[in-house]
Each structure stands twice: as structure tokens, then as C-alpha cells.
């Protein structure tokens, strides 16, 4: 039997690698496996793009859908999988090269990180509602544990808080799943999509709200995102990059995947989601103005970007969706860059408070320069990739003659500039008290520079991977295609 490239490997491989951890420890290959696994999967994902462009790949486990469990790999989910694995590669290389603290290098974190990636991959791949719940909990548990990894007061507090709020969200989602099953007798997403219209309107509303609250908490939408700054503040900055880079993206994807799939006419939810997105964006950006701790600031900035993506995805036109997917990729890269810089600074200065980082630009020129680059990309300034994705979104709105989101997005970007540039200014303050000795530990910067290069490349030549996003947007919005590919195969 020839080795088959099937979606199941995206889930199976990291799981296998994760559970073989003792072996890697013995062989001394722990870090290299952590690095190699997502790298292999990333390569696999990239190689699958052409194939998936033609028709989605379905991997059936046990029985064919809608009865059985299946994995659904279309352009959109493949894009997310590739993104998660790329983030995994970058994260692993940062851990590997960066000589990070021991609590990030043991067997526990190894397993947890792979599990997190698995969970997120599963979230976007699964075609089954209950599987979704399972992967959601896998991702959740590994995230709670990762958050508390450092085992000190702040980390434990963050982990506990995360666990509590995450569990409550999971209960909401579980309830929604239960109700859905009770109403339709289906768990397969495609079949659910077919039958969802038949449910009574009041029940539709209840289920929708349950899902909205549950996924809203997970995907960090205002006003359900009040927990985010605390968790980001308490966790290790490097780990936080995973939360902001992978976890949120997976949940956002799930939220919109469900919305686009279940609702025959997404216009119903458009107003809700766009309003939530706009609120999330504006509130987060405003609150970020006053933050004194870099992790908190980045957390709010992350929320702001989530709001922007929600706003764009909620509009549900092809252009904005493609732009939003592109923006997801950019945001993952940027936030990883910024949180890595934060990790490096934290290690050097033992604090990430604004007042303690005065003049850091003279002590850590490369790190600060990378921070500046990341900020520019977050703000969507050319020639970095953030600009292209934002432009894509804005152009989508303009083509649809919707001008109020444009105004809000630009206003939010202006507010965002207000705090990012305040930090940059303080970084470059000439403070005689600031440590003057320059030290840049070389290899740790490698993944950072790689990210920066990617940001620049995508900003200058986005046409290289433009097709991916367009196809992904089509796949995400193409409810009919999904129904046909899943149910049509079965019939």
C-alpha cells in the first residue's frame, strides 16, 4: 500500500509524536521532533494546495458521512492547517534556538504544544459537531496547562482563570450541540446545514446564541473577551504567541465555518457579527491606550485585530473574506514576532512594564527594530503584509459601497497607532539610566528575522499566494459546495 497523503495525518502524526515523548527524551530528539513534526505537516499542507483547489478531500473514519465521523479538508481549512503548522515551526525553532527557560523545554510542554496544534487542526478539519467539541476540549486543556506552565503565582492564576472561563464556554457549546442533535438527530455538519432550516425559529435563536456565547468566549469577541488580558499577562509571552497566533484563529474559523454553513442566508447573522466585530475592535483599541504592560497591550491589540477579522468575515463577501483570511495569517505571524520580542525583553529586563523598558532600543537594537517592524505590520502600513490584507478587506467593503466599516477600521487603526507608537517612542528614549551594553543573542533572532522576512515578502509580493486566499474564501463561503461534496458523495 502506497503511503497516502490524507488529512488524517494532520491529526494523527502530532498525536503519535506527542505520545511517544518518552522515546524522544531518551533519544535526545525532543526539540528536533517538536520542530520537525509541524515542519513536515506544513510541507504536506503546502503540497496539498493544488489538489485541494480542485475538490475538497474527505477522510472518512469508520462509516461514511453523515453517520460516521469524517475530516473535511478544503482550501479554507487547509490554509488554517498550514498556518497552524507554520506557527508551530516558528514556535519550536524559537524554543530550540532561543535557549529559553527550562519549563518550556521539558517533556510536558512538548506534549502540550503538539496537542494544542492537534486540537486546533482538528477543530478546523472536522466535519462532525461532536468531534468539534472533543478537539475544542483538547485544545482547551492543553492551552490551560500551557498557560500555567511556569508554575508560579501569576502563571497558575492565569491557568486557573483560563480553565474556569474556558470550561463555562465549553458547557455553552456542548449545550448547543446537544440541542442541535435533539432537534435534528444529526451531528454531521453538512447534514446539519441541510436540516438547520427546519428547526423552529425560537430554537434556532437559542442555539445560535449559545454558540455565539460559547465560541465568542473562545474566539475573544467583545463582550465575552474580558478574560483575555489577564491570561495573556499571566502566561509566558512565548506561549501567549500560540494563543494569539493559533488558538484564536481556530475558534474564529470554527465560528464562521458554522455560521456560513448552518445559515442558508448569512445576512441574518451579518449584523450581529459585524456589530460584535466593530465593538471588539474599537473597545480593545481604546482600552489598549492606557496599558502599561507590554503583554496586556499586545493582548488588547490582538483583540482589536480579532475584531477586525470578525468585521470582515461577518460581511461575508468574497473579497473581505479573502482579506480576512490573509489578515489572519498576517496577524499570526506578527503576533508571534511581537510576543517573541516580548519574551526576549522579559528575559533581559525581568519586566515588561513601559517604565522599565525605557531606552531599550539602545540596549537591544535588533529586538526593538523587529518590534517596530511588527508594529508597522499590525498597523497595516506598507510595504508590510498587514497593509495588503487590510487593503484587501477595505477594498471589499468599498466595492460593496459599505463605508461605515471602512471608517471604523481606519479609526481603530489610528487609535492603535496611538499606543504602538507610544511604546516605540519610549523604547527609543535616550535615558542615561538605561543599560547601555548591547547584547543580542544571535540564534534566537533567527525565527524572528524569518517572520520579518515573511511579512516583508507577503507585503511586497502578495500575488505569490493570493490564490490560496481566494480559494479559501470561496470554500469558506461555498455552502453549496460543501453540502454537495459531503452529501453528494454519500448518496
Amino acid at each position: 500500500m502506497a503511503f497516502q497523503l490524507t488529512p488524517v495525518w494532520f491529526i494523527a502524526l502530532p498525536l503519535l509524536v506527542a505520545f511517544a515523548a518518552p522515546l524522544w527524551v531518551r533519544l535526545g530528539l525532543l526539540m528536533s521532533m517538536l520542530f520537525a513534526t509541524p515542519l513536515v505537516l506544513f510541507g504536506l499542507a503546502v503540497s496539498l494546495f493544488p489538489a485541494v483547489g480542485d475538490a475538497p478531500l474527505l477522510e472518512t473514519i469508520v462509516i461514511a458521512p453523515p453517520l460516521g465521523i469524517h475530516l473535511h479538508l478544503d482550501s479554507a481549512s487547509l490554509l488554517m492547517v498550514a498556518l497552524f503548522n507554520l506557527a508551530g515551526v516558528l514556535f519550536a525553532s524559537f524554543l530550540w534556538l532561543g535557549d529559553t527557560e527550562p519549563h518550556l523545554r521539558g517533556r510536558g510542554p512538548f506534549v502540550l504544544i503538539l496537542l494544542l496544534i492537534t486540537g486546533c487542526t482538528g477543530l478546523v478539519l472536522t466535519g462532525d459537531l461532536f468531534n468539534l467539541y472533543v478537539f475544542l476540549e483538547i485544545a482547551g486543556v492543553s492551552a490551560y496547562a500551557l498557560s500555567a506552565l511556569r508554575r508560579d503565582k501569576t502563571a497558575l492564576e492565569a491557568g486557573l482563570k483560563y480553565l474556569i472561563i474556558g470550561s463555562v464556554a465549553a458547557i455553552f457549546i456542548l449545550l448547543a450541540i446537544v440541542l442541535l442533535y435533539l432537534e435534528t438527530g444529526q451531528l454531521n455538519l453538512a447534514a446539519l446545514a441541510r436540516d438547520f432550516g427546519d428547526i423552529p425559529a425560537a430554537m434556532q435563536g437559542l442555539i445560535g446564541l449559545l454558540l455565539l456565547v460559547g465560541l465568542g468566549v473562545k474566539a475573544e469577541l467583545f463582550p465575552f473577551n474580558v478574560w483575555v488580558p489577564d491570561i495573556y499577562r499571566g502566561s509566558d509571552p512565548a506561549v501567549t504567541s500560540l494563543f494569539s497566533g493559533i488558538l484564536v484563529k481556530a475558534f474564529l474559523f470554527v465560528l464562521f465555518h458554522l455560521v456560513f454553513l448552518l445559515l442558508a442566508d448569512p445576512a441574518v447573522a451579518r449584523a450581529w457579527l459585524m456589530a460584535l466585530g466593530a465593538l471588539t475592535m474599537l473597545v480593545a483599541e481604546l482600552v489598549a491606550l492606557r496599558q502599561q504592560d507590554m503583554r496586556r497591550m499586545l493582548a488588547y491589540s490582538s483583540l482589536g485585530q480579532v475584531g477586525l477579522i470578525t468585521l470582515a468575515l461577518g460581511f461575508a463577501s468574497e473579497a473581505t473574506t479573502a482579506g480576512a483570511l490573509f489578515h489572519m495569517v498576517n496577524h499570526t505571524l506578527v503576533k508571534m514576532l511581537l510576543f517573541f520580542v516580548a519574551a526576549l525583553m522579559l528575559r533581559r529586563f525581568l519586566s515588561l512594564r513601559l517604565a522599565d523598558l525605557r531606552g531599550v532600543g539602545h540596549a537591544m537594537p535588533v529586538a526593538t527594530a523587529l518590534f517596530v517592524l511588527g508594529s508597522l505590520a499590525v498597523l497595516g502600513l506598507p510595504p508590510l503584509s498587514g497593509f495588503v490584507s487590510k487593503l484587501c478587506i477595505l477594498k471589499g467593503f468599498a466595492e460593496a459601497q459599505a463605508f461605515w466599516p471602512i471608517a471604523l477600521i481606519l479609526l481603530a487603526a489610528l487609535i492603535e497607532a496611538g499606543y504602538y507608537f507610544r511604546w516605540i517612542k519610549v523604547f527609543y528614549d535616550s535615558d542615561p539610566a538605561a543599560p547601555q551594553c548591547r547584547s543580542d543573542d544571535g540564534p534566537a533572532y533567527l525565527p524572528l528575522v524569518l517572520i520579518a522576512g515573511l511579512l516583508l515578502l507577503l507585503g511586497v509580493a502578495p500575488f505569490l499566494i493570493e490564490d490560496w486566499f481566494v480559494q479559501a474564501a470561496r470554500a469558506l463561503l461555498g455552502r453549496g459546495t460543501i453540502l454537495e461534496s459531503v452529501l453528494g458523495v454519500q448518496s
Partner: protein
Amino acid sequence: MLEFLDSPRVLHGIYILGSLTLFFIGLYGLLAKRHLLKALIGIAVMELSVYLLFIALATSPGETAPILADGLIDFTGMADPIPQALTLTAIVIGMAVLALGVSLAIQYHRLTGNSDMRAMTELKDS
């Protein structure tokens, strides 16, 4: 005398009521109690209420457990097996989460001597 309880509507109504009650008890525990373990118990109770709802509503009175026993070839009259399978899975997952939560809570208590949720203010800023 209690015949009417056998009608699915009534039975389901009672189950719904019961699980809702359980849900709100859990929620109350989560919102009103400050002890970490009590909060975790609250979460567990809420989860339980959902399981209960699921199992109860997916089963009508008179249906048997969906177990393939020897010689059983007639599948009618059996309860829908999927909810039960799913609930089992969910219970396992819930267990894991709870265990993680409790272990974190214990570690937190050991480290700080504190188990009051509202006293967790280490992360305050700005």
C-alpha cells in the same frame, strides 16, 4: 397513579426542569462561591446538567439500553446509542478538565496559601 409520568412529554418536561435546576445550581455555585474548588464543583454540576439533559431527552420511556446482547437482532425499541456514547466521551473530557483544574488549584493553594477566587489579583495592571 403516576402513569402520566410515562408520557414522553411529561417525562421530558421533568428532565428539562431538573437539568435546568442543576444548571442553575452549578451556575450559582460558580458565581456566588469564592472558593476555587467550589467553583470547579459548580462547573462540574453544570456539565452534569447538560449530560443529563442530553441522555434524558434522547431517550423515550420504554426504550432499552442500546447494547448488543446475545441473540438480539431487533434494533427497534432501543434508545439512540449516539447520545450515550457522546455523553461518555464528554464525561471523560470533563473529568480531565476537572482534574487539571483541581491540580492547578491545589498547586496554587500550596504556593500562595490562598484559595479565594476573588483574591487572585496577581495579574492586575495599569
